[in-house]
């Protein structure tokens, strides 16, 4: 039976975050093997794919939307993905990434790239994608179907969500698996 079922196309994306959520995903350990018998990882930092593919079933998006590039990618993810999951607190709430929101962007870039030794900032050289005035959680940019909080989300939580989705069940996490932080 299992053979005839089409494998789920799973993607992961790393926006403005520390990659800790991806580390936690790897901490699924042997459960990963189980998962990958049911799903193909088609895009993300863990696989070698240059372009976000079309027709993705599930996408775990780590990190907040911090710059124009993130925003563009988020739009692209939305058009090509059935279930978009805010993966971890930065995607869900902005979290640590959004702590820069209290500082005006110009001051921020000044402090990072100008007040130290480098004379010309990458922003001026158009190396860095333009920063948004405020870091926003993913759902304020695109519609998000599921929220998987935690900093990082515990592997248990990730497993519970992915298992349910792969089985085609509703995701219903207990309260203690829904906490931020």
């Amino acid at each position, binding site marked *: 039976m299992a053979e005839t079922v089409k494998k789920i196309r799973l993607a992961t994306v790393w926006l403005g975050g520390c990659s800790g959520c991806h580390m936690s995903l790897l901490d699924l350990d042997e459960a990963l093997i189980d998962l990958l018998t049911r799903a193909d990882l088609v895009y993300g930092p863990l696989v070698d794919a240059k372009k976000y593919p079309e027709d993705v079933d599930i996408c775990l998006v780590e990190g907040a939307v911090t710059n*124009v590039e993130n*925003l*563009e990618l988020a*739009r692209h993810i939305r058009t090509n993905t059935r279930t978009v999951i805010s993966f971890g607190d930065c995607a869900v709430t902005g979290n640590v990434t959004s702590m820069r929101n209290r500082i005006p*962007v*110009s001051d921020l*870039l000044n402090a990072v790239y100008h007040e130290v030794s480098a004379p*010309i*900032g990458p*922003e*001026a050289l158009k190396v860095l*994608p*333009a*920063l*948004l*005035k405020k870091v*926003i959680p993913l759902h*304020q*940019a*695109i519609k998000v179907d599921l929220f998987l909080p935690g900093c990082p989300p515990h592997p248990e939580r990730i497993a519970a969500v992915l298992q349910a989705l792969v089985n085609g069940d509703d995701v219903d996490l207990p309260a203690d698996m829904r906490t931020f932080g």
Partner: protein
Amino acid sequence: MNTVDLQHVAEEEQQRQQQLNLRLFLCYSTPCLSAGAERVKNALDGLCDELDEEQRPTLEIVATGCMGPCSRGPLLRLARCDEPEEIYEKVTPEMACNIVRAALAAQSAAAEPLPSDFPFFACQTLIALENNGRIDPEQIIHSIARGAYSSLGHVLHEMTPEQVCNEITRSGLRGRGGGGYPTGVKWELVRKAQAERKYVVANGDEGDPGAYMDRTIMESDPHRVLEGMAIAGYACGAEQGYIYVRGEYPLAAARLAKAIKDAERRGLLGSRVLDSSFNFRIDLRVGAGAFVCGEETALMTSIMGRRGQPVPRPPYPAQRGLWGFPTLINNVETFASVAPIMREGAEWFAGFGTEKSKGTKVFALCGEVVNSGLIEVQMGTSLRDIVFAIGGGLPDGGTFKAAQTGGPSGGCIPADHLDTPVDYESLQALGSIMGSGGLIVMNETSCMPDVAKFFMEFCMDESCGKCVPCRVGTIEMLELLTRITDGSAMDEDLQTLEDLCHLVQETSLCGLGMTAPNPVLNTLHYFRDEYLAHIRDNRCPAGVCRLDQVPLLKLPEHAEQLTIFKEEH
């Protein structure tokens, strides 16, 4: 002073006035003063000094409170014995002198008075404002001559408290501060409450922007308010009253302070009022700039010298008010209607207005209207009559777009509802409220989302911060409205805004939060197209909003909006 003395004083003063050949009433309220009333008065005083010994005593100049059509000030009313009164508008010092000289010489003046059937006056019914513009508010004797404190005397000597409450109930008087709660019922509640002490509070914390009815009443006829409070005190069994005046109204506070002192000196307030066994003291409290203090529980905490934050009701003030004692709290205009009701009877008052909204209501008519000013009309008068007959329509050929009533708690009534009778229920049915009586006429250059944003900013700023929905909800609603008016809104923002409006309306602790979403919901209802034009077509139909921001999702195409460091080197 007893009631006989009072009547004697009144009659004496009436006689004195009747003997005068010419009485000049000059409107000395703020709008007329700023239009030059003081210069007119100086000129008239100078003219008096020039008169000979015979003429001078036959003439009197009275600096009065507001006469109504403030946009036509300075206003001068001429009263000669046996002749109809004349009102002159936009009076200059020269004009005034000419008018008076002509009157003294029994000639017709060069200046034309307002026609006697001038609709601004003809369409009004004056009850609360009946003395406005006819007395010097700083002269208690003027008020007494027009019957002040005679109702109080009658009540104290001829009626039981229960009868007074009944009379008010039968008159159908409802709270004029906006809530429209039956006044008699409230009085009865406080009367029946068992307590060692009770209080009466007059709410003069008129905070709605665009409303100045209470200011005018307090400035133009302070004794009227004090008398109403004293009658309420007798009816409810209170011996202490407070009148809370908005901090922005120093003149009203000063006039009330003087009025209280004058009334006490004559035994009309204080111990053994008018030789009865009733004691009633009134203290003045001056606010310090907080809109939320118009809410009755917040007002009471402010009277007690604390942060003006509301407390959940129930218990209502009638049960637990100032310092935990039963407290009657009514609006200034409500109190101003009391003495005439007691004088003329409940049936007389109930003869005005509509089935459910009896009597009259004072409105501050302003905005894009030819005759702006203070008016008093019967409940149920149509909005069209108010704006076009009394107000004289819009200036410069402007088109009526909406009338804003109820300030930040109300809404904008569009042109197709101009024939709505103005009463509590009808306005509520339109998603607005009667409010305290500000009525602002808007033409096609007013943008409704912008107006909604204006009120939301007001509410955000005035929120006391006690409850979460109001404290945070108002700023989040403002954020969404800002996006709509700056061009960065997206379609779904409208839904988020509406949901938030309902939350704040239903879960806020006090009236401020409960009604803060009204201007948004109401304009969304009647002017949804305008919101959509902003969001979908990036267009402000009224031409007010700049719409120079880009919606978030379109930013990748407009990255220049974000680029901070230009290549300057």
